[in-house]
C-alpha cells in the first residue's frame, strides 16, 4: 500500500466543500433566487426615486450590495450550520479524534465557507447580468473584498457554531446579529443619504466596509475610500480569526 503522510487539512476542506455542494439546490440556488427577488422588487419600487451614485442607476447600484449580502449570509450559514450539525448528530467526534490541528480546523471551515460565498456571489451577479447591465469589475478589488467580507462572516460562523448547542441559539445569532448588520450595511442605499446619526452608526459596522468596497470594484465610486475599507475589513478578519483560533485551541465546547 502506498502511504503518504501529510496534514489532514485538504481532506477536511474537501469534506466541507462537498457538504454544501451536494445540496447546492438549497445552499446555492436558493440564496441566488432570493437575491434576484430582492433586486426585482426593490429596483421596481425605488428606481425612479433614487440615484445612489452619479451615473449609476439604482438597479445597478443594488446588484453588488445584494451579491455581497448573500455572500456574507451564506458564509456565516455554511460554517455555523456545518459545525452545529456535526455537534448535534455527534459525528464531530470523527474530526476530533483525527490528528487535525486547530489551524487545520479553522482554515478548512473558513475556506469552505468562503468558497460557498463566492459561488453564491458569482451566481447572483451572473444571474442578473442579463437584466441589469454592469460595468466589468476590477477583479483585484472584487477578490479582496469577497475574501475579507466572507472571511469575517465565516469566522463568526465558526464561533457561533462552536458556541451554540441548539439550532434556536444559532438562529438567534443569525437573526439578531448577522441579519441586522447585513441589512444595515448599505445594501439598499448609499449611507451618505442617511441622517448623520445613522451614517455614523453605519461606519461602526464592519459589514458596511465589505459592501462599500465590493461596490467600488464595479463602479470606482464608494462612500469610503477603498483602501480604508480594505484595511478595516482585513483588521476585523484578523481579529476574529485570532479569537476563533484561541477558541479552537482551548477546546471550548468541543473537548470537555
Amino acid at each position, binding site marked *: 500500500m*502506498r502511504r*503518504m503522510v501529510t496534514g489532514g487539512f485538504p481532506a477536511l476542506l474537501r469534506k466541507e466543500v462537498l457538504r454544501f455542494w451536494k445540496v447546492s439546490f438549497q445552499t446555492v440556488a436558493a440564496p441566488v433566487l432570493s437575491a434576484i427577488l430582492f433586486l426585482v422588487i426593490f429596483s421596481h419600487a425605488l428606481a425612479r426615486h433614487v440615484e445612489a451614485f452619479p451615473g449609476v442607476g439604482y438597479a445597478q447600484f443594488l446588484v453588488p450590495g445584494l451579491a455581497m449580502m448573500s455572500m456574507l449570509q451564506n458564509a456565516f450559514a455554511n460554517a455555523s450550520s456545518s459545525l452545529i450539525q456535526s455537534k448535534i448528530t*455527534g459525528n464531530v467526534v470523527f474530526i476530533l*479524534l*483525527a490528528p487535525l490541528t486547530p489551524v487545520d480546523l479553522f482554515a478548512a471551515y473558513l475556506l469552505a465557507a468562503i468558497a460557498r460565498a463566492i459561488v453564491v456571489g458569482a451566481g447572483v451577479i451572473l444571474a442578473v447580468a442579463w437584466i441589469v447591465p454592469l460595468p466589468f469589475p476590477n477583479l483585484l478589488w472584487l477578490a479582496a473584498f469577497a475574501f475579507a467580507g466572507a472571511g469575517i462572516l465565516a469566522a463568526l460562523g465558526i464561533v457561533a457554531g462552536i458556541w451554540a448547542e441548539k439550532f434556536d441559539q444559532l438562529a438567534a445569532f443569525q437573526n439578531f446579529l448577522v441579519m441586522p448588520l447585513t441589512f444595515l450595511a448599505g445594501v439598499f442605499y448609499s449611507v451618505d443619504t442617511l441622517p448623520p446619526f445613522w451614517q455614523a452608526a453605519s461606519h461602526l459596522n464592519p459589514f458596511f466596509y465589505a459592501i462599500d468596497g465590493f461596490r467600488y470594484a464595479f463602479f470606482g465610486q464608494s462612500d469610503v475610500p477603498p483602501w480604508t475599507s480594505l484595511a478595516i475589513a482585513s483588521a476585523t478578519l484578523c481579529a476574529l480569526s485570532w479569537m476563533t483560533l484561541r477558541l479552537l485551541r482551548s477546546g471550548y465546547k468541543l473537548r470537555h
Partner: protein
Amino acid sequence: MAVPAVEVRDAAKRFGAVRALDGVSLTVEQGEFFALLGPNGAGKTTLISALGGLVRPDSGSLRVMGRDVGADYRDARRQLGIVPQEVVFDPFFTVRETLELQAGYFGLRGSRPWIDELLERLALAGKAGANMRALSGGMKRRVMVAQALVHRPPVIVLDEPTAGVDVELRQTLWQFIRELNAAGHTIVLTTHYLEEAQALCSRIAMMKAGRVVALGSTERLLADFSERVLRVKLENGGLPPALADGATRDAAGWHRIPVENAAQVESALARLRESGARVSHLEVAEPELEEVFVRIMGRGDAPAGAAVR
C-alpha cells in the same frame, strides 16, 4: 521492554461534582487483548475519551505507544483508533466517501486498497456506494469500526462494539478483531457481554465509580473470584457430612459443592454413592467472569459519594 500500548497514570477528571475518573492508573502492553469492564457510569468511556483527546483530564498522564495524548496529540492520535459507543454518522456522504475522508484527516493518500479490504472484511462491500442514512444500525456500527481502522492504528479501542449487532455479524466482527490482534494490534474493548470478554481477553481491568477496582489476567481473576462448582440434586436424603462443609443449597433443591478440579468431582460423587444418596441431576459449572464481576462490584470499597456519569 517495548513501550506500553497504553499507559495511564493517576488520571483524574471531574464533571462538576462527579468524579468520572478518580485516579486511574493502568498499563496495557503491546499485543494484548484487554477488556475494560464496569457498570454504566464507571468511567470507562471517559477514560477512552481522554485517550482520544475528546476529554481533557484534570490531572495525570495518558500515553498511547509512548506519545502523550496532550503534548504530542497528533502522534498519539495516529497510533489510536477508537470506535465510539454511540452510533453516529455524517448523512451527507456514502460509505466509501466517509472512509476516504477519514483517511484524509490522518493525512493518508492512496488508502483505497486498505479501504476495499476493510469493506470486504466488515461485509460492507455491497454498500460502499450507499448513503450512510440508508444503512441499518448494525451496518453503521461496522462503518464506524472501519473508520477507526482506516489509518491502521497499532492500538484499537472498541467501546461496546457489539451492542445492537446481530449474532452472526458479531462473530464476523470478533474474528476480524482477533486477526488484527494476531497481526500485532493491541485491542482494548469495553463490553457488557462478559462472556465475550472472558473468551477474548487475556487481561481485564474492572472500573467502578471512576476507579480501577480489579486488574489482572483473566485467569487470575477467575481463580481468585470465582470457582468451579459441582451442582447436584438428590432424590433422597441430604449431603453426607464430609461434603456439607462449604456447600450450600438453593430453593430449587440444588446443592452447590465447591471443587477445584476433576479429581475432587470424582471423590465428591464417590462420597455421595457411599452415603446412599441417589443423584437425580448433576452439573459442573466452570468459573465465570460474570461471578467475578458481581463479586468485585459488590465489594463495598468504592469511594463514597462518587456519583455516576
